[in-house]
């Protein structure tokens, strides 16, 4: 059992403001949990506290059924892959992988076997006697992985391990890590600021902002059902459009729910057309400001009475068009209160401005 629990954990450096404020987090055994958030949100600090590289100011950290607050980093059954790999430059690849085993006083014959097995898995056999300086970024990354794997830890921890690689290699390593997780079945905790990595790799995402957990859920759950404006805007490319509800009242009718302050919708859920259609939803006459064609999809920045927002379309780009018509289906609208928290409503929280729309919805 290696679920990880943070109970009321806070962290402050010196007397300054708390970086992590009363965090409660549970990481399931065998999950691939991704901590994601903008820089300075406390994700790395959280990770380093779990690893034991930072002390907690208050609260408890449990790994399995052991309270690890006072346990040395090496004794927590954790392996960590660092952002800059942190390979020992004075040792060969073999030395790097073997170092932890030597410290654990594993006999030489066994050590040799373990190192060679791991080298085989990460495809480093021919580089075992080279020094890290003579390897490429991707190879160094694999040495770091091998060094972490060889100790057979209960938990793997990754601190933005792919951020130093180029885009192509990053994509490749992403798949390799997912496969690795499947094969090992160990708990993975992964920190990144890149929401694409979070969405594609994690089976659980923890979104952090300013030391607070904004949402913890499976990637698609976060995408379809964000708990607040921050989570809604953080996940998804491009970010969710969020407009003040007051600007939309003219188009949809009077609000019946006083809590609602903002309304959001995803760019890919809005339909962009040249003429008004009869499908039900919020209808907005718009003007195209910019257009980015990405091949399979097109990204529009449009301007309407309600404000500027983005629309993602999978149809052919609308060349030489200025005036367009955007329709957002009612069931794709997200409502938020003044604090940015999600407002859940039964049915639609506004009066029908035009009866025809109501009929369409009710049918």
């Amino acid at each position, binding site marked *: 059992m290696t679920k990880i629990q943070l109970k009321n954990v806070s962290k402050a450096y010196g007397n300054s403001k708390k970086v992590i404020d009363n965090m409660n987090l549970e990481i399931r055994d065998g999950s691939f949990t991704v901590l994601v958030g903008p820089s300075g949100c406390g994700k790395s600090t959280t990770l380093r506290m779990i*690893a*034991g*590289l930072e002390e907690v100011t208050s609260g408890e950290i449990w790994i399995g059924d052991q309270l690890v607050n006072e346990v*040395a*980093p*090496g*004794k927590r059954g*954790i*392996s*960590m892959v*660092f952002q*800059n790999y*942190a*390979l*020992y*430059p*004075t*040792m060969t690849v073999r030395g790097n992988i073997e*170092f*932890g085993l030597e*410290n*654990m006083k594993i006999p030489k014959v066994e050590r040799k076997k373990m190192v060679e097995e791991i080298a085989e898995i990460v495809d480093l056999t021919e580089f075992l006697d080279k020094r890290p*300086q003579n390897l490429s970024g991707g190879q160094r990354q694999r040495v770091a992985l091998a060094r972490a794997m060889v*100790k057979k830890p209960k938990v793997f921890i990754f601190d933005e391990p792919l951020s130093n690689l180029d885009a192509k290699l990053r994509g490749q390593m992403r798949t390799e890590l997912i496969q690795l997780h499947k094969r090992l079945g160990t708990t993975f905790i992964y920190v990144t600021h890149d929401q694409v990595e979070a969405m594609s790799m994690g089976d659980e995402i923890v979104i952090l902002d300013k030391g607070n957990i904004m949402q913890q859920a499976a990637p698609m759950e976060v995408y379809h059902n964000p708990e607040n404006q921050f989570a809604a805007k953080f996940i998804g490319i491009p970010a969710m459009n969020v407009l003040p509800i007051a600007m939309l009242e003219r188009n949809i009718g009077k609000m019946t729910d006083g809590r609602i302050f903002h309304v959001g919708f995803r760019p890919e859920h809005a339909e962009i057309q040249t003429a008004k259609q009869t499908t039900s939803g919020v209808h907005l006459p718009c003007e195209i400001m910019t257009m980015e064609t990405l091949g399979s999809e097109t990204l529009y920045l449009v301007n309407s009475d309600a404000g500027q927002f983005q629309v993602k379309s999978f149809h052919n780009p609308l060349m030489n068009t200025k005036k367009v018509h955007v329709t957002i289906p009612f069931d794709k609208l997200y409502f938020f209160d003044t604090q940015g928290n999600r407002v859940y409503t039964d049915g639609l929280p506004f009066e029908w401005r035009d009866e025809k729309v109501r009929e369409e919805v009710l049918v």
Partner: protein
Amino acid sequence: MNLAKSSYINEVSEGEKPRSIKLTKWRPYLLIAPAIIVFLVFFIQPIFYMIYLSFHEWNFISPDKTFVGLENFIVLLSDPMFLQVIRNTLMYTFFTVLLSISIALLMSIWLNRQGWMYSFVQGAVFSPHIISLVSIAMLWMWIMDADYGLLNWVLSLVGINKVPWLTEPNIALASLIIIAVWKNIGYYTLIIIAGLQSIPKHLYEAAALDQTSGIRRFTKITFPMLSPSLFFLTIIGILDSIKVFETISIITKGGPLNSTNTLVYYIYENGFIFFKIGYASAAGVILLVILGILTLIYFKALSKRVHYQ
């Protein structure tokens, strides 16, 4: 316009080019000439002149130099006094460098942290480095004075008898080593602390996760990562110590009983006190050979074991 332009091009291609090529060819040599001339006149020429003199007998004043072949070298190498000078020099160098680096390493590990006290101590141990060697020599002559010295007074407080620091042949060389180490430590500490601070912190974090013991953390990470600094200090330490002159010339003048006479002082003594220029030059040649061999050894053997990022 067109016409003007083409005539300009003609002028450049036909008139200017040959001259500018000539100039381009010589320009680099012209630019390094001042440095090369200084180097040749003040470094290379004296070396060859010294080698030339080492085969002659000359008293510095008489116009004629008598060619004596290898006699100077033969006399030198069969002179028990010279052999003692060599032994003194090597002993002095070995212990000065070893103690300076070891003590500085311990000091650095202790001082490499935040706090006004550490900064103060670091500044304090550095201060001998900026004092002139002559002043240091005068200061230590007083400190180590057998009858009125500070050191013996402090020792007498804890009941230790007077030590004849500078007058006993068995102790005098050790005393000079103490002085040299005292002067070196500050600078060495500074260099090693800089080396310690350039070791990335994440290496220690990785080591912590690898369950590394304190001793192995030092021998496997800190020490290898410091090797460039230590290598640098070893080289300058050995070159400095082999050429020691000021403290000996002021404090002991090679005595008592030749026990603190080292190569450079011996050369000076023979050349400028006894005016045996040929003989002194031969000793100079031997110093040159020793320094050359040492430098070669470092770069061949030691540099392989040194880690550079």
